[in-house]
Each structure stands twice: as C-alpha cells, then as structure tokens.
C-alpha cells in the first residue's frame, strides 16, 4: 500500500479526473444524473487519494519532495515526467481537491444556462487535472503543459456559461494569460539552453544556474519573463484587468475555481520556480514586485470602493488580497513566503466562499447591483450570517483564516531578506497596513448595503428569496469550518509549509547576494535546495527508491 502510494499516488490523483472524463464522454448527454454522479465520485476519489497522500506524507520532513516519480518523458527535449509533493505544494493540492467536489455539489441543481451538465462537468474535471498537475509537477515542461491545460476549460466555461459580456471577458482572459505564458515559455527555454541543464527538472536547472555561471543580466531577463507570466496569472497590478471581467462574467462555479485555485498557480510559480531557480534575480526584482504588490493592495481596494456590482467588487478584492500574497513573497523571507502560502489558502477559501454567496444571491435576486440589494439578513438570515462571517474573514479579522495571510506578510516586510532594501519595504509595510483599513471599508460597506437594512420594495415579498439550500450548505460547510479552524489554529498550514519554505530559501537567500562575488555565490550557491532530487546525476528510479525508504 505504502509503496503503491509512493509510486502512483500523485499520478493517480492527477489523472483520475481524466478517467472520469473518458467515462463521461461515452455516456449520452441526456443522462444528466449519471454524469453528475460520475463527476462527483471522480472528484471524491481524487480527494480520497489526496487524503491518503496527506496521511502518508512525512510531516517531519516537509522540506523533502515526497512521492517522487521521475521518468524520462520526452527524450528529444530532455523533459521528464517528474512529480513530487512537499510542504509548499501540499496545502494547495488539498485546497484544489477540496474545492472541486464542493463545486460539483453546489452545481447539482443549479447548472447555469445553457445547462449541459455533461460538458460543464467534463470541463471542471479537466481543470482539476490541470490544477493538480501544476502543483505536483517538478519539471518545467510538465509544469507548463499543466499550466496551459487549465486555460482552455476555463475559457470555455466563461465563454459558454458566462454572463452577457462573456465573449469579451473570455477572450481577454485567454489572451492575457496566453501572452504571459508565451513570455514564460521564452524564459523557460532560455533557462534550459543557457544553463545547459540535462533536463527541465527544477532542481537540475537550479543547480546549473550556478554551475554554468549564467550571467546576471540573463538571470534578470529570465526572471522578468517569469514575472510577467506568473504575474498576469496572480494577477499583479497592472496586469489585472482581465480578472474583474472574467469573474463578473464567469458562472459561479467558474468564479470559485478561478479565485480559489487558478490565481494561486501564478503565486505558486514564484515560490516554486522563479525564486528557487533564480534567487539572485529575485533579490534584484524584489523591490519592484513589492512595489507592484502594495500598489495592487491600495489600488484594488480603491477599485472595490468604486464598484456598484457585488461580484465585481469581490473580484477586485482579489487584486488587493493577492497583493498581500505578493508582498509576502517579495520579502524573500521564510516568514513572508509562509504568509504567502497561508494567504493563498485563506484567499482561496474566503474569496471562494464569497463567490459562492454572490452566485446564490444572484440566483435569488437576479441582480447583484448593490444599490438594489439589502436586508439579506431579514430574508435569508443564515446566508446573511455566513456572508458576514466571510466578509470579516476577508478583511483579515484575527481568529479567521485571512488574518494569517495578511499580518505575517506585513510583519515580514519590516525585515526583508538579505539584499532587499529595508527602508523601501518598511514603507511598503505601512502602505500595506493602510490597505487593511480600506479592506474593512469596502467589505463592511458591502455588508451593510447587501445584508443589513430591510429588503428593497421590489424584493420584499419575493418568494424565491429563501435561505440556503441543502446543496449550498454541503458546499459551504467545509469551507467555513476550515476558515474558522485555520484562523484559530494557523499551525494547520504553517506546520506544513514552514520546513519546505525554509529549505527552499535557506541555501540561497541567507547569503547576502550583494556582498558576494560570483565565485563566492557559486561556492555557497543553491546546490542543496533540492538535495533529494539533485544529489546525483541520474533522475531515474534511484529517487523513487530513496523516497520509498523515506516513506517507509
């Protein structure tokens, strides 16, 4: 069992959704119940496998890649099928496998027009494969493939099931992301050729950046390309404008998946690829990333204050929240990156919940125009309280998950990593703290106008406005429970991430890059970040064995 999990666990988790898709393709479109059941069972199976992985995961060595599989995939371009799980990817994997079944349950009786559950659920499952794959991939080409796999289902989801302006929004989403991907691909290819690495495996590349003495300028350029690619996905100011449109037009479940998981692909790219492979460039870029992050925090909040549509407001709030995540990353400290991962998980849960709520409200009111809403607490009290809780969580109330992404990020900005300008980041810290005030402002104003007061006349006697249904509760309860649980005991996440973050940063960044000559940097370099994956030249079965030993 253990060995089976070690060798096959991640692969099964990644590709099971595609098996479900294959089965669903064989079943005619009109057997809706059967499609729903297959999709749900598939996603639950994936969740089950992931729980097995969690149980099998060695929490004392979160810094090591576990369940590693590393086989040559496409020999011609030296690409490997390399997957593995460590403390940085585990929380995001679990978030993904949690959100997907909840989305399927939520959709059960509420498929957006033009319905067609078969196609809709197939897209969700393909998305799941892409998302899981991105989080477990340890090879750049594999990562890129999964990263792009995500794009199409989401494009179709928005373009087919979206709101009135769906064509513009979906195309914008697609082109923006594709543009980023193209630059990212340039960076990946350049990295591969310049380092002369033997494969696209992350650890291999990281080793070779130092070993081959890739010039500083080249590193900066490569990092810049990744910055654009990942930054668009995050999205960072000023590449964020696709997000409000995509969210506003996307069907509820699309918005939830987009907010909960898809945005994290970008931030994950930073902490998994860009920073560990190119730490020196990261130090150079850090002030700029930090600057864009805090601009995003303030700017996103101001954008929220100007909104008249609830869903668009929540979408804009993502810009601000992801700003905190990026600020944490830009500090290049353990604390900051831990905060960033926490921020990703928290934002996924909280903003996901807010989009669920917005969707449910839209279904009842047939509008999300804030000035027409009001008195949700009167007409649907339980839903109103859940909304209140999520708004509080989103504004970073301690005791709920959002706080643990926000405050540690602010904290870490006071004392950024070596080589990162301290005064600049202290300024960022104060600006980010101001962002918490604005966050409270837009969320509470929203809460006041949507939930407090009495219902507007047009909806006062509307029989369709009922409290949360059973499917809604099933979909929401786990997320609410996690928001509270992580809020009270943040170690649920920090315990997992800390070791991995520490290890990935320690070797590279505790050395003050600005004080070292390149030779010294080489000597002290990054050779040991992925000590397990990179200890010897071969990336074959040896590693699987090594990990079997660790697991056993």
């Amino acid at each position, binding site marked *: 069992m253990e060995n089976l999990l070690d060798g096959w666990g991640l692969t099964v988790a990644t590709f099971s959704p595609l098996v479900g898709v294959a089965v669903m393709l064989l079943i005619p479109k009109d057997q809706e119940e059967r499609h729903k059941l297959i999709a749900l069972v598939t996603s639950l199976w994936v969740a089950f496998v992931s729980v097995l992985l969690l149980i099998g995961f060695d929490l004392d060595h979160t810094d090591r890649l576990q369940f590693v599989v590393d086989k040559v995939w496409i020999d011609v371009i030296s690409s490997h099928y390399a997957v593995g799980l460590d403390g940085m990817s585990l929380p995001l994997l679990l978030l993904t496998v949690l959100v997907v079944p909840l989305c399927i349950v939520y959709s059960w009786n509420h498929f957006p027009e033009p319905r067609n559950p078969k196609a809709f659920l197939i897209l969700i499952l393909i998305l799941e494969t892409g998302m899981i794959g991105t989080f477990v991939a340890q090879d750049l080409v594999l990562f890129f493939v999964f990263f792009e796999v995500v794009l199409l289902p989401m494009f179709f989801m928005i373009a087919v099931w979206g709101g009135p302006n769906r064509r513009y929004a979906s195309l914008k989403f697609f082109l923006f992301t594709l543009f980023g991907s193209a*630059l990212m691909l340039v960076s990946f290819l350049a990295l591969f050729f310049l380092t002369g690495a033997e494969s696209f495996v992350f650890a291999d590349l990281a080793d070779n950046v130092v070993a081959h003495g890739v010039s500083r300028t*080249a590193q900066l350029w490569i990092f810049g390309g990744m910055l654009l690619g990942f930054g668009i996905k995050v999205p960072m100011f000023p590449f964020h404008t696709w997000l409000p449109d995509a969210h506003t037009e996307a069907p509820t479940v699309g918005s939830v998946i987009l907010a909960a998981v898809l945005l994290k692909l970008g931030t994950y790219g930073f902490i998994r690829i860009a920073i560990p492979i190119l730490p020196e460039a990261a130090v150079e870029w850090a002030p700029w990333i930090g600057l864009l992050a805090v601009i995003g925090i303030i700017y996103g909040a101001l954008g929220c204050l100007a909104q008249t549509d609830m869903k668009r407001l929540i979408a804009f709030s993502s810009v601000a929240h992801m700003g905190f995540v990026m600020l944490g990353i830009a500090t290049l400290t353990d604390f900051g990156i831990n905060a960033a991962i926490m921020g990703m998980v928290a934002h996924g849960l909280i903003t996901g919940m807010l989009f669920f709520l917005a969707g449910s409200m839209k279904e009842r009111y047939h509008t999300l125009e804030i000035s027409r809403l009001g008195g949700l607490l009167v007409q649907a009290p339980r839903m109103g309280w859940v909304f209140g809780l999520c708004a509080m969580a989103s504004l970073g109330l301690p005791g709920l998950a959002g706080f643990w992404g926000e405050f540690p990020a602010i904290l870490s900005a006071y004392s950024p990593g070596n080589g990162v300008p301290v005064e600049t980041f202290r300024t960022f810290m104060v600006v980010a703290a101001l962002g918490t005030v604005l966050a409270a402002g837009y969320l509470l104003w929203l809460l006041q106008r949507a939930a407090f007061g009495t219902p507007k006349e047009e909806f006062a006697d509307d029989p369709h406005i009922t409290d949360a249904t059973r499917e809604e509760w099933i979909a929401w309860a786990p997320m609410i429970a996690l928001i509270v649980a992580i809020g009270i005991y943040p170690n649920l996440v920090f315990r997992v991430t800390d070791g991995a973050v520490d290890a990935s940063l320690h070797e590279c960044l505790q050395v003050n890059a600005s004080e070292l000559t390149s030779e010294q940097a080489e000597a002290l370099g990054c050779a040991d970040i992925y000590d397990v994956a990179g200890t010897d030249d071969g990336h074959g079965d040896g590693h699987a064995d090594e990990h079997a030993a660790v697991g056993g």
Partner: protein
Amino acid sequence: MTDLLTLAASAAGSGLPLGITEGGAWLLRNVWLIPLLPALSFVGILFFGKRLPKGGSELGIAFVGIAFVLALFTAVAWIDHRDDFHGEEVTRTVAVAEHHDEHGDEHHGGHGHPSLAVHNTVTWFQSNGVEFTVGTLVDGPAVMMLVVVTLVSLLVHVYSTDYVAGDRRYTHFFAFLSLFSASMLLLVVSENTLQLLVAWELVGVCSFALIGHWWEEKPNSDAALKAFLTNRVGDMGLLVGVTILFFTVGSALPGQFGSFSIAETNALANAGALSHTALLVASCCLMAAVMSKSGQFFLHTWLPDAMAGPTPVSALIHAATMVVAGVFMIARMYGVFFEGFSIGGSSINMMALVGGLTTLVGASLAFVQSDIKKVLAYSTISQLGYMVMALGVGAWTAAMFHLFTHAFFKACLFLGSGSAAHAVHSFDMKADMGGLRKEMPHTFRTFVIGSIALAGLPPLAGFWSKDEILVGTGGWGLFGGTGGNGAYTFMLVMGIATAALTAAYMTRCVYLTFFGEFRGHGHPHESGPRIVVPLWILAGLAIVAGFLNLPKGFPLVPDSLQERFGHFVEPVAGYFPTIAHGTPSWSLAIFSTLVVAAAIGVAYRYYFVKVEAASKACGKSLTELPNGPTTKYPLARRGHNLLVQKYYLDHLYTDVIAGGTKGPLADVAYSVNQNVIDGVVNAAGENAVKAGNLVYHRFDQLVVDGVVNTSGRASSGAGEELRKIQTGKVQGYAAILFAAATVLAGVFIVIV
C-alpha cells in the same frame, strides 16, 4: 519560544530576569479556563440557544457566573502568590549585556522573589522554524481585570434578561455578549502581543455586532461601521507597532529573529537593551491604537455614536471593559511606553498630552448633549483620558485604580440611564425625561451615587482614584505632597479643570433626568428586580471601591489596609519599569474637592434654582433658561455651536476623509483602470487583430496560401470549420503568440 528561554535561578546572575515564573498555584497557571467558559457558552448559544427555554441567556449567565467565581479564586490565589511565592524566575540571555538591576530590594529574592507573574504557554504555530506560543501571563493587572470583566459582565447579563426581553434577536444578543466576554478575558491574560492583537480585534468585532444589533435601521449600522472603521485606523498602528517591537526585541536576543513575548519586550526595554528610537516609534504607533480603542482625542468620534447599541452593551463594552483595552494595553506594555516616551523625565509626552486633551474635550462635549447616553459616552471619553494621562505621567497604579473604580460607577450610570430610558422609551433627557425621582426611586438613588462617584466627591470611589491621578502629575508640592515621575503641572491643571467640568455636567444630567416635572408621555414606573439589583450592587461598589487603595499614612487606618490595591496590582518585576510614586497631600485633596463642590454649586444654582424658578413661573418644565448665556452672548453662542458640532471632527472624517476616499479617490482609481489600463489592453488587442488581418490578407492569403492552396485546400477547409466552432480567434492568436515566443527565445539566447 519557551524552549529558548533558559531557566536559571536569578541568583546565578546569568541573563536578564524577566519577572515571570513557570510555577505557581494551579489556578494561576490554568487561568485560560476563564476565557474558555464564555467561549463555550458562545458556541452553545449559537447552536442551541434558540431551543433553550430562556433563549440561551441562562447558558450565558451560568458560564459567566462560573467564570466570575473562578476569577475570584484566582484573585485569592494571586494575593497568596504575590507575597509568598519563592519559585524560580525565568531569565533570558541577551545580546546587550548592560543589564543593570534597578528594581529595588524586592528584586533580589535569592530564589526568585515575590510578585513574579505566572506564565504558561503552548505552541500556536511555527514559522521560520520558530515556534510561536499562545498563553497566559497572570499578574496583578490581569487578575484585577479578570474580576472586573467577569463581574460587570455577569451583572450586565442579568440586567439584559429584563432589558432586552422580547427582543427580535434575543439569542444573538447573548451569544455576542458571551463572545465579547471571552475575547476580553483573552485580551487581559495575553502573554504576547500577537495574542493581544487577536483578542483586540475580536472585542472590536463584538462591539461592531452589538452596536449594530438593530441593523434594520441605517443609523445603527452606520454607527457600527464607524466604530469598526475608526478602530481599524488605529489598528494600523497596532499592526505596525507590534511588528516593530517584534524585530527590535529579536535584535537584542541572540539566535532569535524576533519575539512577541510581552515579558521579554518589557524586560529588555527596562534594561535599556532596545533602541530608544525604535521604542519611541513603536510607542507612537501603539498610541494610535489606544486612541481609537479607548476613545482618545482625535479618534474618539465613534464612541458617542456607538450608543446606538443596546444600553447593556454600552455599559459593558463602551464604558466598563472594552474601551479600557487601550488603557490596559499601555499598562501591559508599560516598559515600552515608559522608555519610549521617557515618562520618567517630566517632559510632556504624547501620551500625557493626548490623555489631558481628551479629558477636556470629552468633558466639554458632555455639556451640550441632550441624549443621556451621549452625556455618559463623552464622560467615558473624558475619564479614559484621565487614565491615559495618568499613565503618561507615570502614575501607573492611579490609572489602573481609576480604571477599576470607573468600571463600577460608569456601569452603574449606564445601566441607570437604561433603566430610566426603559421606563420612558427614550434617551432624550430634554424631551422625554424629568421628574423621574418620584417614579423611579431606586434608579434615582443609584444614579446619584454613581454621579457623585464620577464627580469625585469624597468618600466615594471616584474621589480616591482621581486624587491619585492628580497626585501622580506631581505638580503640586505643597504641604508635604511630592511628585512621582516629575512635575507635569500642565496635566495637573487639565485634570482639575476636568474635575470641575465633570461635576457640573453630571449635576445638569441629574437635574434634567430626575428633577423638574416629567416631560414625556405615559406613566413611567420603576424597573424590575433584574434591573434594580445590579444597579444597587454597582452603586455599592461605587461607594466602597475607593477604600481599597487608601493612601499611605491615612489616619485611623492600620498600615496593613493602606494601598492594598497598589500592592497587589502593581507589578514589581523585571518586566515592569521602576516608577516613582508621589506622596499624596491633604492640600491637593482638599483643593480639588473644593473645586468640585464649587462646580456643583454653580451648576446647582443654574439648574436647581434658576431653571426651576423659571419653570414654576411659566408653568411647564424647562430644561434651559429662556434667556441664558447662549442667547445673551455671541461668543457663548459660538462656543456652544462648536460643541454641538463636536469640534467639526465628524465632518472632517465622514465627509472629507471617508467621503473623499469612497468618492473621488476611488472613482479616479477605477476610471484609470477602465480607461487607461484597459484602454491600453483593448488597443493592443485591436491592433493585434488589425495586424493579424494585415498579415492574413496580405501575406498569408496571397503569398503563403498561393503556394499551399493547390495542395492543402482540404485541410484549410477543415481549419475554417474548426475556427467557426471556437467562439473567438483564439487559435490564431495562440499560434501568433507562440511563434513570437519561439522567435523571441531564439533572439534572446543569441544576444544574451
């Protein structure tokens, strides 16, 4: 971080003694039970409250009651511990080894010494390989607060069962009272600043929920929002201040990059191991949080509006407990503030100044209110100013003592005002009250007792604590009195002026509510026992609480009964700075009493004599003289108007700052988003399409296709079909972009 603390006998002399111990009585080590109880009742009421016969209130009362009993036992245990504990003290190795023991003889106990705070922690989370803890720090101020919070909370619970009976959200009300109690109790036992911050925000959100309890009406939810947002502004300071302290402390501890521990932070600050600049900046940041939470000028504007909540909430949260969280935080972090603001140096510092101004601003605004709760709200602001001012001049014990006595008499006054309002269905003294002394004798008597205590007439509680604050300013020096930490004459003057104002506005308030003839509608009658009994308990405490800290050398009282409060509450340990204590003087006490009496006399003459006579003359109950100073003198009218407009601060905040951010600023940002950034994006998109068309029509169709056409007609047709299926020109874009990417990659590799 407990594992990094080195346990060593302080006699060994290695490291800095923190003034804390891991030992002590069981209850002192397990004081987390006290906040846990109301937390449990919150969950219980939330899930089962509606199904219980009394709607959950019985659960709240039971759990808070048990918490109160436990708090009393804790107090007994602490009194025992304070003088008789000789366990081991925790010490800490510091980077800067210039620690000089400056805590007097009591500090050298050989094997620990009395007054060690009891410290107990568990791991909360880990980051950067460091384990962060959550836990309890039990010492004098914490125990005092435990007793005050649980007692007032219990009385307010009982009072509420009558006051909010039949309310539309009865169960929710009690759920949030429980959550508030739990958060507040968590705050007072916090062992580190992060935990303090968490509890600080939690009490804020409870305040938000309870101010907005009747959220159907917009003014209530507006008030709730205002309270929360104003507090958030201050909390920015808390976030930044805590961060600065975290790293500053870390820099003084070898092998550690930061620490949230309150004991460590204070001890290091006292020992001079932390940079003064850092402490000053941190103190200023934390002061911002104090200003918002404890209603200090100029972030006090939310507190009067917070009276939109139910009266028991005003008594518990916005008078007795939550609003003193800021004061408590200063008291908790006193090492930091003492060093940061150089409080020992008798120069006017930010804290003393803010406190002094607040006392005057609050007291002056209390004069022009016609809503009885707003009078009390401004009075609370003013009294909180007293406490902050006292802390600012180094009179730590006086501030804590005033916090203690104020909790009782102000809760008594608030609950009394609620009782009166309950009877007349209004809070407007001028329109709907008057003459209530006849119908409501118990409310009347307890309210007057509370008023005298607040005004500070001997021998009621307020006199003793106010007198200590005045002594603490150290500016007197006549007839044997000596200053504490220097001469803060300016603060002394403000304190005495406020005392006069307080006495006068309370006289006005008592007259308008209870004297004259009834101006409202219906027939008011005395409230039931669940309201009256808590009133009498609080009134009783308002009479006797002051005797707990009789000054040293007070005649006819044995030494063992003098300064008991100070002895048990003021820490004498490494985490607490050395503060000098002023010697009380009879002349100051007599002088301030005369000032108060004179102020009461003036107000009495105006209301009880002149207004009363004018009322008799015209045959209806008046509230002001028809031809009073504001009609006679333009200057008085202008001054009055300034007060009515609350110094125009609300206009500044609501219209200028909040309105400006929400309106123009947000709109500009959004229009930049839509027009500039998106304009670029859309233009790029359009141009790309144009370029694509150009390439397609001029190049692809003519040149390439010319070649391909003959062979590839079929496949091209298939491509067209596929393109139609897709909703956009996605494939085309994708192809172009990836082609460009490949070219770029090539160029890049060649060049770089």
